[in-house]
Structure formats: structure tokens, C-alpha cells
């Protein structure tokens, strides 16, 4: 048998030129290689028929700008492969919990108030997540540069995943008929009108980044409210129907904030546009902050009514003070 | 009076792999006139009018549960319409659709 030989060949280079220009002579990560320098940047042939005031790729689709589009890189280093593999793995664990909840018929253990919380508060936000999906995928089209476009595209899939998880919860609460009732609540119940109004208005906000950050403002209240405050009480009271699955959404939110937080920091720290970006972010606070607060207060109010305790409302007031810039 | 036109060929091309072996066999069992051909890495199955892939048949061959959605892992391309895809079967044919308006 012939000996297995390897020919020793010195590579001429490690990676693509744009990647090397940024990272130097070390080996790139798969993320870097598939993200840096990918988006076309010049010589676009036609302007969009549906928006001739812009080029096909155009940094001026938003007032928030980066002088170096790759100053922001996803701290999670998600390229397509690592993203779907991560989500598939999480999905497997989640599926086990969901199956457990369903096979053990844990819906039967829900007391009236908890049933009301699940159906009337938590699951109704499946529509909020569906709206968040549209806001995120819009950003994926109009962002300048692949780092932001990819992160928002993945976020869009995540939001729909969340919406479908909540939908599964709704089915467990009582099938299609229950979902129909819950949808009616989304459309008409005062608890959900601030959220529905916010989403609809963000869908017509022309600046993709403003809409993304305004949405994030609402997330930063809703997620802690439901998946920390409410989840803690559920856990203490042994409401397994919720607390077996809630950590999945809480963990997702923590990870989501990692990249959005890094993006906000990149905007603020930008050597050329940092000050202007600061002004825009302050403007978003002013313009959309009250709407985000209204969403959280409405949800908190319903939670307190059902639990007979003013804790949620207080929690939101504290949180609003904390996240104020 | 009706004129009959010759049956139009429906086909699927699958990756030639261990994963697709059972599917190929199932298609052969459940479809009367299947024509099989090979190209590097690919197996093509063609049939006049219609091809059906049945979960039960695949499971019987594989000896384990099989989700029809696993078909996503082996399909490369197809010619025809996917007329149905549910938990029990996938049906590909050339069919005329009712005009909506």
C-alpha cells in the first residue's frame, strides 16, 4: 500500500482581499469571510422604480449612519450556517419542553387567572412578533452593508419563530377557536391596542433603523415584563405550562439585545457621525418612547388585574427609569 | 368529443445518497411506470402524469418513522406541479387549475 502523502503547499493568501484588508494576515472566521466586503458598493445601473430618490443600496435610507459599515460586526458571528444550526439545536430542546407541556396536558393545571394571562396577554403577542418580523426584514433590505443586513434578516426569522411558538401555545390553550378569540383580543381589547398601534405605525415609518430601534424600545419593556417578572411569579407558583417554555424566549431576548446593543454603540461611537447619530437616537426616544411605555403599561395593568397585585405596573415604572438614556 | 394529448412526463431528481435510497425504492413501489436514470450524484425518476411518495412505504423500507418533510433533504429539482404535500404523501403531477375568476 502506497504511503499517504500530503503535498506541502504554501497558500498564496488566507482569504478574500476585503477581508484581509480588515483583519490582516490571520485566518478569517467563517463569519468574517462571508460578511466583510460582500455587498456591492458602486456603479448601480438603475434607480428603484418604487423609490427613485435613492440608489439600490444607499446609506441615506436611514439617518443613522456608520462611516465604516463594518465597524459593526455581529458579536454572535452568525453567518447562515452557524445561525440555522444554533436555532435548530435550540428548537430541539424547546420542542421537548413543548411536547412535555402538551403530553402532560398542563393546560388543565392553569387556574383562571393564569389561563387569562396566557391567552389574554402572552399569546396575543404572536401578532406583535409577526409585525416585528416585517419591521426586521425591511431593515434587511435597506441597511447599508452585510453586517447589519444579515443580523436583521436573521432577527426576522427569529421573530416569526417566536410568533409560531406563541401560536403553538395558543393551540394548546384551545385549538383554532382559541386562537380566533385571541386574535379578536389583539384587534379590540384595550390591553393590546397600544401594541397594535405601535406596530402599525412602525410599519409605515420610512427610516428602517428608526423603526428597528423603536421596536427594540418596546421589546426592552415587554420581554423583561413577561419573561422575567411574570415568569418568576409563574415559577414560584408552579405554573409549569409557562415556566417550562418561557426561558426560551428570555434567552432569545438576551441574545437579541447583544447585537442591537453593539449596533447602537457603533452608531454612537462613530468618528464621523457619532454626534448626529446620538441626536437621532434621542429623537427616537422622544418620538416613540411614550408609545413603548403605553404598550408596557397596558400589559402590566392587565397582569396586575389578573394577579390582584400592582407589582407589574411598578416593575415597568422602575424599568422605564432604568433604560432611559 | 375529446382529444387526448400524450401524457406529460413528471419527474423528480434526487441526490444519490444513503438518505435517498429508501425514497427511490418507495417511489418505484408506489408508481406503476417509473423510468430511472443516473447522472453523477443524481438519480432521476420520471413517470407519465403523476408521481407519488408515500410516507408509509418509505417507513416500511427504512424501518423507522419518516416525516414527509424530510423529502426536503434529498430533492434536487422536479418537473410538474406539487399538487399535494401533507403528513402522508407528496403528489406531483401536471394538472389543470380551475380558473379563479
Amino acid at each position, binding site marked *: *500500500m*502506497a504511503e499517504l502523502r500530503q*503535498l506541502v503547499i504554501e497558500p*498564496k493568501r*488566507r*482569504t*478574500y*482581499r476585503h477581508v*484581509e484588508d480588515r483583519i490582516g494576515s490571520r485566518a478569517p472566521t467563517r463569519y468574517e469571510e*462571508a460578511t466583510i466586503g*460582500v455587498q*456591492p458598493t458602486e*456603479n448601480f*445601473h*438603475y*434607480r428603484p422604480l*418604487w423609490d427613485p430618490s435613492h440608489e*439600490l*443600496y444607499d446609506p441615506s435610507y436611514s439617518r443613522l449612519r456608520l462611516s465604516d459599515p463594518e465597524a459593526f460586526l455581529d458579536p454572535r458571528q452568525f*453567518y*447562515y450556517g452557524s445561525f*440555522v*444550526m444554533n436555532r*435548530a439545536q435550540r*428548537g*430541539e430542546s*424547546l*420542542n421537548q419542553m413543548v411536547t412535555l407541556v402538551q403530553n402532560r*396536558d398542563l393546560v388543565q393545571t392553569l387556574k383562571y387567572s393564569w389561563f387569562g394571562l396566557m391567552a389574554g396577554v402572552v399569546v396575543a403577542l404572536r401578532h406583535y412578533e409577526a409585525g416585528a*418580523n*416585517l419591521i426586521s*426584514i425591511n431593515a*434587511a*433590505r435597506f441597511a447599508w452593508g452585510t453586517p447589519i443586513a444579515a443580523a436583521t*434578516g436573521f432577527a*426576522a*426569522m427569529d421573530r*416569526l419563530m417566536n*410568533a*409560531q411558538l406563541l401560536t403553538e401555545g*395558543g393551540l394548546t390553550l384551545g385549538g*383554532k377557536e382559541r386562537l380566533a378569540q385571541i386574535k379578536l383580543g389583539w*384587534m379590540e381589547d384595550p390591553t393590546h391596542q397600544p401594541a397594535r*398601534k405601535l406596530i*402599525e405605525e412602525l410599519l409605515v415609518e420610512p427610516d428602517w433603523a428608526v423603526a428597528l430601534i423603536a421596536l427594540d424600545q418596546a421589546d426592552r419593556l415587554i420581554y423583561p415584563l413577561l419573561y422575567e417578572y411574570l415568569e418568576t411569579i409563574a415559577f414560584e407558583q408552579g405554573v409549569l405550562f409557562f415556566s417550562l417554555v418561557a426561558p426560551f424566549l428570555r434567552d432569545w431576548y438576551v441574545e437579541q439585545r447583544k447585537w442591537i446593543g453593539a449596533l447602537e454603540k457603533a452608531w454612537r461611537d462613530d468618528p464621523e457621525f457619532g454626534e448626529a447619530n446620538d441626536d437621532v437616537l434621542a429623537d427616537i426616544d422622544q418620538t416613540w418612547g411614550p408609545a413603548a411605555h403605553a404598550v408596557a403599561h397596558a400589559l402590566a395593568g392587565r397582569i396586575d388585574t389578573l394577579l390582584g397585585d400592582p407589582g407589574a405596573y411598578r416593575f415597568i415604572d422602575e424599568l422605564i427609569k432604568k433604560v432611559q438614556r | 368529443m375529446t382529444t387526448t394529448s400524450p401524457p406529460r412526463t413528471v419527474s423528480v431528481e434526487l441526490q444519490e445518497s444513503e438518505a435517498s435510497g429508501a425514497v427511490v425504492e418507495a417511489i418505484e413501489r408506489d408508481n406503476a411506470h417509473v423510468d430511472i436514470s443516473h447522472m453523477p*450524484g*443524481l438519480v432521476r425518476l420520471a413517470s407519465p402524469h403523476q408521481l407519488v411518495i408515500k410516507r408509509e412505504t418509505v417507513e416500511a423500507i427504512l424501518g423507522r418513522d419518516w416525516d414527509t*418533510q424530510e423529502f*426536503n*433533504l434529498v430533492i*434536487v429539482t*422536479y*418537473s410538474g406541479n*406539487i399538487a399535494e*404535500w*401533507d*403528513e402522508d404523501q407528496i403528489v406531483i403531477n401536471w394538472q389543470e*387549475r380551475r380558473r*379563479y*375568476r
Partner: protein
Amino acid sequence: MKMKKLSLKEQYHVMTRDLDWEPSYVDRKRVYPYVEFEGIKVHDWEAWEDPFRLTVASYFKYQAEKERRLYAVLESFDQSQSHLRLSDGRYLNGMKLFLTGLTPVEYAAYRHFAFLARHLGGPAPRFSALCQSIDELRHCQTQLHTFSIFNKYYEGFDNYHQWGDRLWYLAVTKSYVEDAMSAGPFESLVALSFSLEYLLTNLVFVPFMSGASFNGDSASATMGFSAQSDESRHMTLGLEVVKFLLEQDEGNVPIVQDWLDKWFWRGYRALALVANLMDYMLPTPFMSWKEGFELYFEEQMMGGLFPDLEFYGLRPPRHVDIAIAEKEHYSHQTNFALYQFSHLTAFHTWTPSPEHLDWLSSKYPQTFDAVHRPVWEKAMRAAESGNRYYNMGLAPQCQVCMIPPIFTEPGDPTKLSLRISEYKGNKYVTCSDGCKWIFDREPEKYIQARTPTDRVLQGLAGGPTIPEVVSWFGITEGVENRDYVGSGDHKSWTEWQQSLTLAGGQQ
């Protein structure tokens, strides 16, 4: 009480359609502002059908499995230096064309389907578009990772970004996809989903993937097959778009017909690069352009799909007869153009070997020996005498498809096909009846395009001399460009193959 399990169909409905709602705080027309301006009428978005009916969770599950398998192959190919087992060093020039020409199209599709995932008027097509959007990112990124393997050892891969934005022949694919991106949502669906992903898809993917297989490139072949499983969803979307639009309103039929006419032709012209690859750039060829066109287009589409679409009032595309007439000459004329301008290409070209000329004769028995063989034999004699032919002139480019006028009139291979349109006092060159028809229909759109040749003439391409233009293109003289023979790639390949032989060969 145990939960009643929903059928796949019911599950799909609650997981997709039912998430949507009718807005009341803002006008629906403001939420979906682009669905009416093209004149398309949709009366019921619920009629949209998606047989795949994936949930996001199942999407992740199956796509993750595909990625795991693919990356295992890529890593193995890389670690075992399998590039040394390619059929020949010339082969990789086809993959340079893939990376620089096709990968940017995948990227553009990723960004554009994101637009459709936001702006189509119904939740079901928006979801299909969402999945396609990140599928296309998948294709782009897996291609970048696959070609990264070759980039380490060979020239013509590393500066793909700049080449893609600036090179004259890559304007063919760049302008194609930017034309689609700048169009309205329904036209872009006909352009990308129907025309490219259904009508012409096999003519794009089979050549590259089978070409890879036949030439020892299991990395690209595996990547291609893996991508193809996503393509079956994209094909389905493409066919569904057309049937949906045609069924929604009779008034849509002539609009869709016009788009079909335009996008068949634009897609067909972009495929000149593929024809060139199939017939000239694969050291081990597997199928000629003519064979591929006859099977995948004439037989499967003209003979299969279009009789089906006739039911809806759609006829085969305008100018199909020209494409059929051109099939004898398409690849030869394209490759010879690239050959003579190869001082300006970021990949190598070469004169075909005598064996390859014979293969071409056998595939084009009526025309090759009479029309094209003499051209190659002349080029071979020039190269052998040390005067390898480079055309130092500057060719105009078609204002629509960006290809220089290199094709001949159907039925007269001695006469170049060239058309002129006059608009607002200016003259615009197109290459054919097909492109002229496209230009005349939307002149305001096409006068925006600045062909790379125009750019050079207007002094916007680095300078007036060829070396300055080469530099502006991002090409390093003598490295990526010119003939394969004597190139760095050729020297590397020869040296490594010799070392393998001396080492006792690879088992």
C-alpha cells in the same frame, strides 16, 4: 382532554396566514404602498398556495442538517488538498466566473427577497419570500466558503468585490439583477422567481454542478446539490407566482406576458456566460450548450411548461426564435469575445486543444467546422508564433444586456447583429431585436445605465490608457488576466502535479 393535532394544511394556516391582520390605525395602502403601481390586480391573496408549508422550526431543522453535511465535505476537501485532483488547472477559471458573476446575483436576490418579504400584500407569499431571502444568503455564503478553498492557491478569486462592481463582462449579470431589484414587486417576481428560478434554472445550475462533478470538483458539486434542494422551493414559488397572477384577473395576462417576454430575453442573454462555460471552460465537458438548451429549454419548457400556461392565455416568449437560431453560435461567439479581450478579464482564457475542437465539431456538426474552427485555428497559429491575439480596441456594450455586439444575425453568421434606438436626441446601441424591444419599451430606465465602456470613454475608469483601465478594474497586470498558458496558475498547477507524480501519486 388531549390536544387535537392539526393537519399540515391547518397548521400552516395558523402559523402563517392567521398571524396577519387588517390594519386600522394606518391605511393599508400605506403599509403596502407598492402593490398597485404596476397595474396588477390581486383580488384575494388567500388564493396563494405554498405546498411546502414549512414552519420556521422545520426550516431551521432541515437547513441545519444540509449545512452540517455540506461543511463536512468542504472541510474534508480543503484539508486533503483535493484541488490537486481537479481535471486540470484551467477548470478553475469557470469557478472564477461563478464567484464573480453569480455569487453577487445570489446576494442581490437575498436583499431583494427581503424587500418582497416585507412588501407583498399577503402573508403567505411574504413567508415564501422570507425563506427564499435567507436561502439566497445561504447560497451566497456557502459559495464564498467553497471558493475560499481555491482562493488560497489560485488567482482570480480574491478581489471579487471590486471586479463584480467594475468589470465590463460582469456588468452582464450585475445589470440583470439590478434591473430586477429596481423593478416593481410583481415584475421582479416574474424576473427572478419565474424566469430565472424556473424557466432558465436548469440551464444555470446543471452546467455548473455537473461541470464541477465531471472535473473533480466535489466541493462545488456538493455545494451546488445542497443549494438545489432549496431551489425546488424557489421553483415552486416561481410557478405559483405566474399562475396566481394569471388567475387573479384577466387584465394581468398581457402585463405578465410582457414581463415574460422581457425577462426570458434578459435571462437568456445573461446565460451567454454559461454557454461559454459549458463549451469552452470545462476541461472535461459533459454537455454542449446546444444540447442543454434543447433539453432544458426547448423540450422541458417549450414542450412541457408552455402548453400548460396556454390555458391561462400565455404564449411562449417573444424572440424565442432568435435564441433557437443562435444556439449554433452562442457559446463560440461569447468565448472568442472573452478570449480576445482577455487582457481585461480577471480569469484566463486559452485556445482549445485539437481534441476539444473535435468535440465541438461533433456537437455542432452543421456549423462548427465551417464557421468557428477557422477562427480558432487562426488564433492558435498566432499564439504559436508568439503573437497571441488581444484586441486592443474598445467595444461598445449593449445598453440593455451589456454584452458587446458579438452575435451575428440569425441565419447570417457573417453579419454582426446591431440595433440602434433614438431617444431624446441620443443614439443607443443594442445587440439584437430582443434587447432593442426591451430598450424601446422602457427607455427612461435603460438610459440610466452606464456601460463600463461608456465609463472608460467618459474618463471615469481610471484613465485613458489600457493599463490605467486594467488597474481601475482591480486587475493586476499579468496575474489574473490573459492566457492560461504561462500564467501563475499554470505554473503552480504544473509544478504541483509534477511534485505529486514524483511523490508516487495520490491514492
